[in-house]
């Protein structure tokens, strides 16, 4: 089993519903977020392109945050989900420094927090909150090891990219382009 998220940048309108759903579902403290929208405009006028992306922890296979954690609070569970055990975390910030995606933040209670792919929902067989609320249905979630899953099929048939692949982290959030 290898969980992965596939996000269609051609369908995303940048409404931030995923951000709000995550904040509500996971009781994210005010002023913080586990996922966010980036809007990038590239090219030279008049040939410009707009790209909207919903970003979050990439649940990397080669996760630098897990590698550099001195206590083992950051760890990978079944399905490739990267989690933080709050009462093992000392709040040293090494994982935040190590993340090429800046996906982690220090929770006001001291420990480091991040996207969990809504692990508590996955255990109940539900989709992550962000995926379940997306009004344009541009987000897909599933098992990459299953060749017939929706995410596997999308990655087979569509062009996609990952973020900062040169960082060598083998990220598992894919963007259809």
């Amino acid at each position, binding site marked *: 089993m290898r969980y992965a998220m596939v996000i269609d940048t051609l369908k995303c309108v940048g409404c931030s519903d995923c951000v709000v759903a995550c904040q509500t579902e996971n009781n994210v403290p005010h002023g913080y977020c586990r996922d966010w929208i980036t809007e990038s405009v*590239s090219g030279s006028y008049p040939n410009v392109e707009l790209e909207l992306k919903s970003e979050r922890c990439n649940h990397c296979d080669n996760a630098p945050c897990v590698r550099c954690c001195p206590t083992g609070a950051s760890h990978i569970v079944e399905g490739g989900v990267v989690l933080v055990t709050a009462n093992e975390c000392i709040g040293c910030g090494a994982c935040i*420094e190590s993340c*090429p995606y800046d996906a982690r933040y220090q929770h006001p209670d001291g420990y480091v927090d991040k996207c969990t792919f809504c692990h508590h929902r996955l255990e109940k067989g539900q989709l992550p909150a962000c995926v379940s609320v997306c009004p344009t249905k541009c987000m897909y979630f599933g098992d990459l090891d299953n060749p017939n899953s929706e995410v596997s099929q999308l990655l087979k048939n569509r062009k996609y990219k990952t973020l900062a692949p040169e960082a060598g982290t083998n990220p598992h959030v894919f963007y259809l382009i």
Partner: protein
Amino acid sequence: MQEELFTSGRHIPHIDPSLEIWHWPIALYLFLGGLAAGILFFAALFYVLGKDREYPAAVKITSIIAPIALSIGLLALVYDLTHPLYTWQLYTTFRIESPMSWGAWVLLITTPLSFLWAFSYYRESFGKIETKLKLFKRFKFLNTFETFVIKNRKNIAYALIPLSLVLGVYTGILLSAFNARPLWNNAILGPLFLTSGLSTGAAAIILLSKSVTERHLFGKIDLGLIIVELALIVHMIMGYYAGSQVQLEAMELLVGGDFTLMFFGFVVLLGLLVPAILELIELIGYKVPVIVPALLVIIGGLIFRFVMVEAGQLTRYLY
């Protein structure tokens, strides 16, 4: 003109628009850790070589700085943690891939050893303070303890030589292990921080030494270390130049960017080149107040840590 404009919907303090998780305590610790590593290395080395009578400042007197520096450094580290009550979790595991785990364990062993080393020379080097405090009269067990520590001095010295080197390298590896921060992510940072630490350690010995021969010897050692450090800095800059786009952008902070004056003015010129020239002039035979180059080296080392910690956090992958 090709342009790319990013608008982020994220509002996380200390992460957007640029990362600022590590502040002055980390920079201060990296400096103090390096300084203590340098002092302990020279103390242990010259003791093992049997030169403790010839070079009393290196072996006996300056070693009082090491436990103080390590204690302040450790306090700074714990102060920087946001979940400090869980610090003990560091010692429930050893994670071979995490430089911070290495550092935590090395500090756990080195700090008490540095206290023991300084304690073993306390009565000998700081007799005046002892006659005032009368600690050994008040607490009788200190006498037996002192005899025990003095008997084991050689063992402590043999342990301190590798430990101090690991401590000195670790202060650099701590930063260089993060591939997400291109300015830090080069293999030369470990040796560079070790050299800088040894150099500041030698400078501290020069400051506290009363004998001319000892000052001259450590002047020579410091000069050699400064030359090595300059060479390593040249290699570091060359490495950025030969690197990928993210490393080129990182280097621009030091060469032509916001940190140019701090790096080339205060670290390279005032912290390395000027003291090197002053130490050279002194070795030739002219009179130079030794306090000047020694202090410049120490302050330069401190500024170097601040520049690297602050600038490194401005660099990242762009995607």
